[in-house]
């Protein structure tokens, strides 16, 4: 079952385990420069407002009703990242694990392959939460992604259009698989009660700063350091009988008001404005995890800036390079209460 609450999707599997819950939300962020340089992780500027397409059945395109799911507003050339939060099972003092597959325009963001409901371990095409806390873009190389950047479906920039030659789906697609209950209980045996979940990681900023076609699609933007991790579990640990999937439509912000009657969020700050304000960027390390190699298919795509040059367009306003200085290092794997040493 999937529920939408406070602009987050919660995938729950009560038939598998009462605490098998994964929450996914879509974070507004600044667009990193698409200039060939590598950038650290940008901040989260809050969740995109997310609505059920069925609540606006008269206003949305017919295909959206067929796809079901939810919708959120994006401006052209705006960026987004996905935040994964697994439910905490207090009795086992562990977060319930999930295999998560994400696609943009039905192109798998990890492998670059066409959409399939099945998990693929050889040439892994999914991520594992909570090991993978976030996804910011297309996995193009070991340790590097290209940021998800919204462009109008049909303009030719999206990964979908570059790989298939068609502008058919756009949006984001998500499918979630829980770990089998017996495997979870074996791998994470019951432990004495202790309060709190010290494993959650936050890179959210609470910031005060903080005739278009309806469909937006995601294209590869600037390069960013982000590792997509190998599945640390066995392939058989995943319950492939119980899955849930959701189509996330990306509505052009210019038509969001016409569809919903509400204003979309304001345009996020540019990377230059953000850096000038001295606000933090992030880097994330997991010493125990192994990063996947990137997808050759995805690495072969033109970034938005490169394709813009070829087309003679300027698709990314304010694409000036910046040098991030205030970088916060986040590391996974601390025990509850353990103090991170940091660098000084």
């Amino acid at each position: 079952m999937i529920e939408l609450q406070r602009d987050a999707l919660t995938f729950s599997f009560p038939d598998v385990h009462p605490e098998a819950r994964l929450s996914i939300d879509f974070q507004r962020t600044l667009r990193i420069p698409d200039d060939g340089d590598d950038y650290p992780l940008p901040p989260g500027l809050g969740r995109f407002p997310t609505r059920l397409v069925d609540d606006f059945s008269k206003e949305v395109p017919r295909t959206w009703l067929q796809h079901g799911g939810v919708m959120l507003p994006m401006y052209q050339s705006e960026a987004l990242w996905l935040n994964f939060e697994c439910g905490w099972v207090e009795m086992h003092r562990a977060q319930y694990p999930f295999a998560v597959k994400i696609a943009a325009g039905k192109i798998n963001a990890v492998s670059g392959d066409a959409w399939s409901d099945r998990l693929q371990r050889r040439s892994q095409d999914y991520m594992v939460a909570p090991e993978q806390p976030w996804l910011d873009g297309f996995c193009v190389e070991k340790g590097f992604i290209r940021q998800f950047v919204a462009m109008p479906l049909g303009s030719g920039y999206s990964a979908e259009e570059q790989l298939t030659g068609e502008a058919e789906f756009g949006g984001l697609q998500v499918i979630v698989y829980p770990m089998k209950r017996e495997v979870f209980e074996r791998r994470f045996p019951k432990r004495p009660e202790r309060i709190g979940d010290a494993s959650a990681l936050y890179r959210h900023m609470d910031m005060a700063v903080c005739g278009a076609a309806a469909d937006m699609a995601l294209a590869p933007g600037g390069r960013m350091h982000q590792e997509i991790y190998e599945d640390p579990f066995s392939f058989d640990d995943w319950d492939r009988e119980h899955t849930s999937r959701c189509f996330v439509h990306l509505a052009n912000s210019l038509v969001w008001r016409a569809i919903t009657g509400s204003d979309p969020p304001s345009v996020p700050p540019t990377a230059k404005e953000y850096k000038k304000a001295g606000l933090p960027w992030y880097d994330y390390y997991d010493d125990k995890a192994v990063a996947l190699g990137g997808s050759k298919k995805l690495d072969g795509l033109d970034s938005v800036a490169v394709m813009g040059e070829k087309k003679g367009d300027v698709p990314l306003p304010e694409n000036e390079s910046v040098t991030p200085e205030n970088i916060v290092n986040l590391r996974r794997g601390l025990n509850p209460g353990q103090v991170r040493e940091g660098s000084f």
Partner: protein
Amino acid sequence: MKSFGTYVRKQRERLRAGDPEYSLRKVAARIGVAPSFLSNVERGQESPPSEPKIHALASVLGEDPDVLLALAGKISTDLQQAICHRPQVFARLIRELKDLPDHAVEQVEQAARQVREGQW
């Protein structure tokens, strides 16, 4: 509608203390009314202006238009249309929620909604 005028005057004067752009004359010009009319409205000697002018005034003063409309004894057209479109549903809902504290209404707003998977 003295409360509307008093409130608008108080907010405008507060802003004017730091910025002369919020003088009676300049605010009246920005929303497209005569200064004498705005002055009369602020003193409660004239009824509040039309809904579009209240929206413009809210925008200039950085106020919530629904709050200004309520002070003027009005309800925005989009809400009126929504209620007229489904009168029984909204009448029932409003009567049920009207006496609840704000935090309880917020809980209703934030209730989980099931997502349909669809075909794709």
